[in-house]
Structures are given as structure tokens and as C-alpha cells.
């Protein structure tokens, strides 16, 4: 149960934090259609995050931060708003500042291709709840990945400026991708149990897909080295980038000011 809960936190935090970043595009996107589309993706991920955090809390109630006696805060919110940075399990790629639309598209492509591959296998999870969450998520992620892929192609083949920005975004985001394939002991364990998926097991499949997107777009796969770890750990160990502290300060400020608040 501990491993299942920890695993749900990883999947849930990836969704929650990426959703947060995407939601920052609201009223800032290049056009109304993209404003709506990015909000859609953010909403899908937020929905997944809620289910996954609730599953984590159900599987291991000890994970949920303690709140003042009688606080009406539900477990999903206790996890989202009352955990400290080091307790968040998302990959660092999810928490990076948005940069421009190109960087956002590349990040979405990398995160959604990987997550889609995971969810496609998680449909067969021995945990019924996780399997159901995955089944719902597969449809959503397919849309996210296709959306990102279409824009990747459009920016690569659009104008010289859009291509320049796409390549710059790719260079920025790519080195953080390796973390997605780094198997955490918890992931190894849940994979062995048939509950979860070893992320390393989907990288080949994702690589093939990305190769297609790159080749249609006429973009070379970057040769950049992976972003290093910190004291041997990264996001899954709660060791994040400097962007994470500011993100959480903003995300949690109202909830924390009212630990017994009802919303």
C-alpha cells in the first residue's frame, strides 16, 4: 500500500504541477483557440491529479499532512496544499517555467508522449482504481500528445522565427527528459507487483514516436546531455529545481492562510 500510494503521488504530482504551469497560459495564449486548448489540457491533468492524490491518500493515510483538529480540508487538498517542496514527487520537467509557446509545446509533447505510454499500460494495473484512472486518461493524453505534435510540426515548418524558437525551446527542455526514464525504486517495486509501470520500459516506444514527429518536422533529435541530479536525486526524490519553490509559494498561499477554511 505504501508503494502504491507513493507511486500515485508521482503520477499525481506530475499532473498537478504540469497543470499549474499550463493554467498560467489562461488569458495569455497566442490566440483564443490556444487559450481554450491549453486550459483543456490543464483541466484534464488537474482531474487526473485529483483522482491520483485521492487514491494515494486512500492507500496510505499516513501520507496526508496533519491539519488542525476539525479541519474540513479533504485529503486531495491536504496533499496538494500542505505538503512541503521535498514531499512533492513530480519530475523537474513538469515544474519548469513556461517560457514561450514553443517551449510549452515541446514540454507538452515530451510529457504527454511519456504519460500516454504509461497510462496505456496502467489500464491493466492490478489496482482497479488506478486502472480506471488510466483508462479515462488515455483518451485525454492522446489528445494532448496530438495537439502538441501538431503544433511542433507547425512551428517547425511555419516561419524562420517559429523554427528558431522551436529549436531553442527544444534545447531548453530536452535535457530534462531523461528524468522521465529514470526508474525510482518505488516504480520498480510497483512494476514488479503488476500495479505500476517501470518508466524505463516505455522509453523505446516513446522514442519511436518522437522520432516520427522530429522527422516529419525536419528537426534533429538533440544531442544534449541529461540535466544532472542533486545529491544523487531528482524530482522523484523530492529534489527539485529552483522554480519549484516559487510555484508552491503561489499555489499554496491561500490554502495555507486558512488551514481550517471551507471552500
Amino acid at each position, binding site marked *: 500500500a505504501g508503494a502504491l500510494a507513493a507511486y500515485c503521488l508521482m503520477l499525481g504530482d506530475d499532473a498537478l504541477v504540469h497543470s499549474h504551469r499550463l493554467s498560467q497560459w*489562461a488569458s495569455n495564449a497566442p490566440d483564443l483557440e490556444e487559450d481554450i486548448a491549453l486550459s483543456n489540457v490543464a483541466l484534464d491533468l488537474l482531474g487526473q491529479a485529483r483522482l491520483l492524490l485521492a487514491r494515494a491518500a486512500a492507500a496510505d493515510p499516513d501520507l496526508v499532512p496533519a491539519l488542525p483538529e476539525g479541519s474540513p480540508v479533504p485529503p486531495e487538498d491536504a496533499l496538494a496544499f500542505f505538503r512541503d517542496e521535498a514531499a512533492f514527487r513530480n519530475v523537474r520537467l513538469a515544474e519548469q517555467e513556461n517560457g514561450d509557446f514553443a517551449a510549452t509545446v515541446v514540454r507538452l509533447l515530451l510529457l504527454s508522449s511519456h504519460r500516454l505510454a504509461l497510462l496505456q499500460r496502467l489500464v491493466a494495473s492490478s489496482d482497479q482504481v488506478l486502472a480506471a484512472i488510466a483508462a479515462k486518461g488515455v483518451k485525454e493524453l492522446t489528445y494532448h500528445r496530438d495537439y502538441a505534435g501538431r503544433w511542433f510540426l507547425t512551428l517547425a515548418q511555419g516561419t524562420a522565427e517559429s523554427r528558431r*524558437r522551436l529549436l531553442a525551446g527544444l534545447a531548453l527542455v530536452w535535457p530534462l527528459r531523461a528524468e522521465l526514464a529514470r526508474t525510482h525504486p518505488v516504480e520498480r517495486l510497483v512494476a514488479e507487483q503488476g500495479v505500476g509501470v517501470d518508466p524505463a520500459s516505455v522509453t523505446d516506444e516513446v522514442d519511436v514516436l518522437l522520432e516520427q514527429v522530429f522527422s516529419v518536422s525536419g528537426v534533429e533529435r538533440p544531442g544534449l546531455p541529461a540535466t544532472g541530479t542533486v545529491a544523487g536525486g531528482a524530482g522523484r526524490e523530492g529534489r527539485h529545481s529552483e522554480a519549484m519553490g516559487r510555484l508552491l509559494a503561489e499555489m499554496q498561499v491561500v490554502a495555507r492562510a486558512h488551514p481550517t477554511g471551507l471552500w
Partner: protein
Amino acid sequence: TALVEQFEQVLARHDRIEPRDWMPEKYRATLVRQIAQHAHSEIIGMQPEGNWITRAPSLRRKAILLAKVQDEAGHGLYLYSACETLGVSRQELTEKLVSGQQKYSSIFNYPTLSYADVGTIGWLVDGAAIANQVPLCRTSYGPYGRSMIRICKEESFHQRQGYELLMTMMRGSDAQRAMVQESVDRFWWPALMMFGPPDDDSPNTAQSMAWGIKRDTNDELRQKFVDMSVPQAERLGVTLPDPDLVWNAERGHHDFGQPDWEEFRAVVTGAGPCNAQRIAHRRRAHEDGAWVRDAATAFAARSSAEPVETREARA
């Protein structure tokens, strides 16, 4: 002429004018101005609420708020489309918005200063907007009327969500109750201003009513809104900040004080607390997005120019 007569007849029988129908130039211009202003209001209105998406205090409220701001973008889309049926492009209208040539609802020139404002905007601001807009569902111009039907439906959903947020907060902590009251104190008067100046100071009302673009006077709508809001405020447990607010059994309506029309004029002419900020935000987003829109246009042009086989081979 026959055209004018036909037009007048459509109006007389409360039927719709459609894009292909003949219409007087002033009717068209008035419609464009009104629909554009409405579209701009939806788009600018995303900012004060969007301000709280990243800080929403529960995941459920975050989802509700994000979906609501997204709906506003959707409303903007329909309304710009309705304008396009009158021969004006979204691009043109956006330029007019960011250069300050066209207006948007002044209510959005007030800041959102606490999470309670998300609820108050739903309750009072969307409430006032609905009161203004429900009659527009029967407006004479077809595409506008049909957009309004859809928009009004979503707006009442938003209004209920806003009211429900406030209700929930009132059942929470003392700090939350104080937050709700403070928010209502700030938004009550600006909400009343949303119906426009008093009738004796509203020169365009008569013509708009004759054309069936508008169906009620400002003061009629304001009265309706006050009468509706008073019992809601009571149920909520907040005080409306108007010492003159009292039930008048004779009229069968509430008497109430006048908003500060001086402030209204100032805000309308650009001197509100957030006018500059709202326009600067919109302009920045629009300018920052130019290269993306250009890329999409260039890509679309290239794709349609290429022979189909090449495209298929490539994909």
C-alpha cells in the same frame, strides 16, 4: 424603399435579421459596436478571475475557476464570430481593443483582491450580466441572439457556482466570512454601475430599443437586479453596503442609493484602478503571440499549396 420596409416588418413581428438580410448602416454599426464590446468584455473579464487560478485554495475550486475562465474565452469566440457575420474580423476588433478605441465592461477595471472575489464576481457581476443579457436572447440580430442564448445558459451556471462558493465560505471560518463581506462591499456599487447611467442620461437607449437591439432601460434592469439580490444577500448573511436600501411596499420594489456616477465616468474614460493594467496585459499577450499566429498562417498556406501526395508522404 422596399428594403427598409422589409427590415421594419421583421422588427415589428419580433423576428430575426440574418447576416444575408439588408440592414441599415447605422443598425449594423451599432450592432458591431455592441457585440464587439461584449466580446471584449469576455476576453478582458478573463484577467480578474484568471488572477486567482494558480492560487485557488482547493483543487475542486481550481477546476471550477479554470473552466469558467475557459468558458469566457469561448464566449469571446462566439461573439467575435457573430461580429464576423457583420463583416468585421477578430483581428480588427482586437486592434481596436488594445488601442483603446473600443470599450469593454467597466467592471473589469476593478481588481480582484481575495479569493472571495471569485465568488462575488460570479454572484453579482455575472448576475448583473445575465440581467443585462437575458433580454438580448430575443434581440433582433440572429447570430447575436443565438450566441446570447448559449452564453446566458453558461453564465447562470457560473452565477450559481459563484454564489455557492460564497455560501460555502460563509459556513467556514470567521476570516472567510469577513473576506466575503469585504468583497461584497467592494463589488456592490460597481455591479450596479454595470447597467449603465440612469435613463435620463443614456442617449442611445431609445434608438437601440426601437431597433430591438435592447429590450429594457438601464434603470428597469438595475431595479430588477437589486430586487433579486437583496434576498440572496440575506440568505448569504452579508450586508449590502447601501444605507438607503429599503423595501418600498407601495412600489413593490426596493428603494436604493445611487452609485458614484462620477467614479463611473472616470472608469469608463480610462481612469479606473485597472484600466491601464488590463489593456497592457491584453496587448502584451496579443503581441507575444504574433509569431505563433504568423507561423500557423504560413504553415497553413504551405500545406494547402503543396500537392497532396507530398503531404501524405511526409506524414
